[in-house]
Each structure stands twice: as C-alpha cells, then as structure tokens.
C-alpha cells in the first residue's frame, strides 16, 4: 500500500471527528431555532430534554400576521416570474443558438452585462421606472425587472447549441415551422436545464428581499420575506419562540423540498452555476 491510501487509524479518526464537528457546528444555529420553535416560550434558552413539545408557536405566529396572504403573494410571484422567464428566455436563446442575424454578437455581449449587474444594484433608477409605469406596490412591479434573464438566456442557448442538427432537420422534413421545431425538438431536449434553472429561480425569488421591500408597502402585495421581516421587527410583545416558528414556517416549503429532492437541488445549483 502506498502512503497516499495508507491513513493511520489516528488521522482517519481525526478527519472524521473534524468533519462531524464542522457539520454539527453548521447545524447548530438552525437546530437552536428549531428547538425553540417547538417548545413553549418558557423554555427559551433553558435546555431541558423533557420540555414539552408544542405547535402553539406556529399557531400563534400564523394568527399574529397575515402569513396566508404572504404565502399566496410569494406563490403567485414565483410562478408568474417562472412562466414569463421560461417563455422569454426560450425564444431569445433559440434565436441566439440557431440563427445568424444582424447585430447578434453585440447583442449577446450586452445581455451578459446583466450577469454582473443585478436589477437591485440599480434600485433607485428601477424604482423610478416602476413608478412611472404605475406599478409601485404590485406583484408585477416586483417581477418585471427579473423577467428578461441573461442567466436563463445564456443557459438555454448553451443547451440548444448542443442539440444535434439532424433532429431539427428531421422535424423540418416533416413540415415543422421554426417555432414548431423549437417546441417539438429543442424544448424537450432541454428538460433537465429547465428543471435546474427553475429550481434556482424558485429559490432565488422565494428568498429575494431588498427589491420587494422597496416596491411593496401594503399587506396585500408583500411577499413572505418582507412580511417575515416586518413581523420580526415589531419587537414589543412578540417572543423568540414565535419568531423562530414564523421563520421556519416561511422557509418551510423550500426546506422540505430540498430535503426530499436533495440530489436534484444540488445538481441544479451546480448546473446553473457552471456557465
């Protein structure tokens, strides 16, 4: 055996211990919040293995702020953004992948600028634009700056380019138009990329905060993140166990989805990251 694989039992144990220490350390803040959320507020920061479990904190949090409305807003927002992005990015990516047209290269280079400069970096100018459109405090106002996504166009263009030309020609012979080819050949071929891009975008927009904070000012249009921040910042009379419950509740759907579909999540983040 060579030194590379020969690992003394001591160093192997050390490595395992280090890895587990880091893992536990990483789970600690979250575990602390989970523990607090599921126990009566009398037990905040008083650890007792036999403390009674309760769901009351979740009930109280749900009753204390319009979380149902926030959930609905975030869901509509995320679905709306996703549908629009899929449509717009697919069309643009197809043109960039399969057509030769005037201005193509310059246009593509300009699009890439958005990978660097996200809409919230230009928050004031974008707010002025949204205000002039009369969309302040609407879900459309939150969504609009994100609908043309350089990232989506880039990702789909790469995928479409790798689709064999023969598939397209076969479809053309059968009498498909350009859009028909896109729908029958390219979109099905890019399914894993749509999944990856979709998961990344869902978690991005479910979690997005600063821009929705700027655009919304009423309960009717607030997404979850802004609602949670408003709820948690009213510190009088609200105790930590309820704040922890609300925090877990709002991240719950994503967290559960992640625990169920870990592999897909990790794969998606990976696919989406390596551009």
């Amino acid at each position, binding site marked *: 055996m*060579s*030194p590379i694989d020969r*690992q003394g039992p001591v160093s192997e144990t050390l490595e395992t211990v280090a890895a587990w220490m880091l893992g536990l350390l990483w789970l600690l803040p979250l575990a602390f*919040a989970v523990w607090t959320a599921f126990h009566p507020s009398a037990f905040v920061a008083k650890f007792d293995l036999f403390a009674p479990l309760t769901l009351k904190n979740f009930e109280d949090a749900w009753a204390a702020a319009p979380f149902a409305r926030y959930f609905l807003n975030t869901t509509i927002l995320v679905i709306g953004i996703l549908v629009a992005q899929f449509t717009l990015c697919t069309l643009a990516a197809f043109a960039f992948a399969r057509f030769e047209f005037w201005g193509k290269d310059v246009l593509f280079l300009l699009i890439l*600028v958005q990978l660097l400069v996200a*809409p919230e970096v230009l928050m004031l100018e974008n707010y002025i634009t949204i205000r002039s459109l009369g969309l302040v405090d609407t879900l459309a106002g939150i969504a609009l700056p994100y609908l043309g996504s350089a990232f989506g166009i880039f990702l789909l263009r790469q995928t479409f380019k790798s689709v064999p030309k023969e598939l397209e020609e076969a479809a053309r012979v059968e009498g498909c138009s350009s859009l028909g080819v896109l729908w029958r050949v390219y979109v099905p071929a890019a399914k894993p990329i749509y999944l990856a891009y979709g998961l990344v975008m869902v978690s991005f927009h479910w979690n997005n905060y600063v821009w929705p904070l700027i655009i919304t000012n009423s309960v009717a249009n607030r997404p979850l993140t802004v609602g949670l921040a408003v709820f948690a910042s009213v510190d009088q009379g609200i105790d930590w166990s309820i704040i922890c419950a609300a925090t877990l509740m709002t991240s719950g759907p994503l967290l559960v989805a992640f625990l169920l579909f870990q592999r897909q999540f*990790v794969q998606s983040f990976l696919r989406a990251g390596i551009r």
Partner: protein
Amino acid sequence: MKLSTRTTIHAWLMVLPACALLAMFTHIPIVTTIWHSFHSTPKPRRPSRFVGLDNYRDMLADPIFWKSLVNNLVYALTSVPISVALALTMALFVNSKLRGKGFLRMAYFTPTVLPMIAVANIWLFFYNPQYGLLAAALKPFGITGINWLGSQDTALWALIAVAIWKEAGFFMIFYLAALQQIPTDLREAAAIEGASRWTYFWRITFPLLMPTTLFVLVNAVINAFRLVDHIFVMTGGGPDNATSVLLFQIYVAGFKFFDQAQAATLSVVLLAILFLIAIGQFMFADKKVHYQ
C-alpha cells in the same frame, strides 16, 4: 455568409421581448445612473441641473462613504477567503470515505437553501445577549453580556460569520463536482510514485481545482457586494455605520434621504467595482474553462 433580411427580422422578433426588458432594467438605468451622478437632485422648486463633479467631491468628503467602502472591503476580503477555504475543506470531507457523508453534505448545504431573511432571524436569536446560544456557550468561560451586534467592535464580524455560514455550503458543491472530475489514474500514478496525501493534494488536486477556485472566488466577491438582506434585519447598518456597506448606503441615500444624486454617485462606484471584478476575471481566466 450573407445574412438574410427575413431571418434577421424573425430572430429580432424572438429576442426583442427579453432584450427590451433587459435594456429597460439594466442598460438604460446604468446610463441614467451615470447621468444623474453629474446632476443635482431635483427638488420641487429647483429642477435638476448639471453640477460636474460636485457629487463625487461630496461623496469623497463624506466619512460615511469611506466607512461603508472600507466595511465592504473588509467584509469581502475576510468572508470570501474563509468561506472558499471552508468550502474546499467540506468538499474534501464529503468526497472521502467518511462515515455519514450524506448527512454531512446535507448539514453543510442546508443554510444555502434558507432565505437570507430567515438566516438573519436565526442568527439574531443566536447572538441575542440574553437568550442566545452564543451567550449561553460563553457563560462558563466568564464571558457575559457581550452585545455582538450592538457593539462597534464586533458587529461587522458577526455579520461576516453569518455570510460564511450561508455561503460555504453553496461553494462546496462546485468543488465537489470538480473533485469528482479528477481522473482516478492520477491518484494511482501518484501512489506508485509514493506521494503522500499532503503532496498529492498540493501538487495534483489543488492545481486541478484552480478554474473552480477562480469561478467560486469571482462569484463570492460579487455576492459580497450584492447580498445585503441580513444587514437590513440584523443591524440596519449600525451601530454608528459600523456595518454599513455600499449597497446599503445606496438604499439609505435613495429611500431614506430621497437624495437621487448621492444614490447615483454611490451606484457608479459600485458599478465600477463590479466591472473591475469582471475585467479581472476575464484577464486571469482560462477562457475555455467558462465560455463554450
């Protein structure tokens, strides 16, 4: 190849909706931001006028600007190397033959999935001087009553710890993917040569991971300038601007003081920094690694 007019029209119709939106919320605002940075803020009875470099002069004379810039640099230069080093360590752990590596991967990655606002709440509680776990853990050592987020000496570091916690697991997956790409015969060859694990890592693994490291570094630095959600919730830029960073100051200038000129001038600085990062990446990057 002659480009046909018909194809050009078709293609432009396809790219137009996405490009119009991109132009509207990225390119045009970049231009108007620069424009506004050379003009005064419009007031009800005093319309905006050209003021040359006055806004920039005011900005350079403003200690809060310098404070935010320095904070942002400290934030980036500490949180980025630490989270990237941790990410690599995590990836090496999870990629080895450890027991329970599936669980560990989950533990490292979970913070990435949480909204930054949720993360902020969790850590706000964690740092709480009265009820927080940190206070409880330090009590046996006689360290009590430290208000981590309320003290100028510790607040920025407390936020840096949060950023590291949130980001390291995210960068881990890129390293993990890259580690799995390294051909196993390299390991066999190194084994035949009698190389130790340490040598193998520094001579083989680490250099092969260089493109990943560059990619992760660039993204981490960009994030360090762009992700400020937790600052809103945890410190509001305080105490006394100890945790204010550029993007947060842009928000304050634009939406607290309604000072368009100041916000635009700060935005130009942030844009310049982002473009410098991009140029740096372009110059250092092995181009074939990232683009096509």
